[in-house]
């Protein structure tokens, strides 16, 4: 079970990601959109989910038991090639329902200190 002391804490991303045209194009193509360098609305997940995984696995949760419950994006600025993004992750809530642990992580994708995209992932760790 997640240490309740972690709820409300923000973990600042220590590495940055430079968004490439290739990564956007490949993601868009996989969704059926060829020849674009405009990030699809869900592209931020490629950055946020990896950080959430590393944070929650590091906190003792088993990623092999995870199911995606809810997802929300607020997009202030569309991600584009060349943007350098750091990702801060905050464990907003954690609760246990019928033995399943339900954790909501908010990820702030920052460019030069400004929030470009906020991603909320609610993840269910099955009992």
């Amino acid at each position, binding site marked *: 079970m997640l240490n309740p002391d972690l709820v409300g804490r923000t973990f600042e991303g220590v590495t940055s990601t430079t968004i490439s045209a290739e990564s956007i194009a*490949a*993601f868009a193509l996989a969704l059926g959109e060829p020849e674009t360098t405009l990030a699809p*609305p*869900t592209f931020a*997940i490629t950055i946020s989910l990896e950080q959430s995984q590393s944070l929650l696995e590091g906190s003792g949760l088993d990623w092999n038991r995870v199911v995606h419950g*809810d*997802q929300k994006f*607020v997009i202030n600025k569309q991600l584009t090639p060349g943007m350098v993004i750091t990702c801060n992750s905050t464990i907003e809530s954690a609760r246990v329902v019928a033995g399943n642990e339900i954790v909501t992580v908010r990820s702030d994708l920052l460019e030069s200190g400004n929030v470009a995209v906020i991603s909320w992932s609610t993840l269910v760790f099955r009992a």
Partner: protein
Amino acid sequence: MSTLKVGDVLPTKTYKINRASLIAYANASGDQNPIHQDEAFAKSVGLENVIAHGMYTMGLVGQYISNVAGSSSKVAEFSTRFTKPVVVPADVDVELHVSATVVEVSETSARLEVTALCNDVKVLGMTKAVIVI
């Protein structure tokens, strides 16, 4: 984009999901969880068969919303609940039918509620988007 009015029901679009498209999404997104690719593994953890990444299904709906908005750059908010898995048997194209209703329009934005169905079952719930108009 034509003018959106509250109550407008936007045309349904159909997206095809198959094993090859799941592998393409896994490679592009980095989510290589074997439940989305490996039938034996999926069944070993109690699933009926391989299931689509929830984020793949949401991503296809994101394409629908981007098309309605005229560009992915006009999508300001997008949220969903993953209510039912999209089961993807081998050698089958599973059809995802996406439609939306306009529920609110302001001077600068429109709010949509989206329906996503596979085999007449809602696979996403409470799917909402705000687009800039």
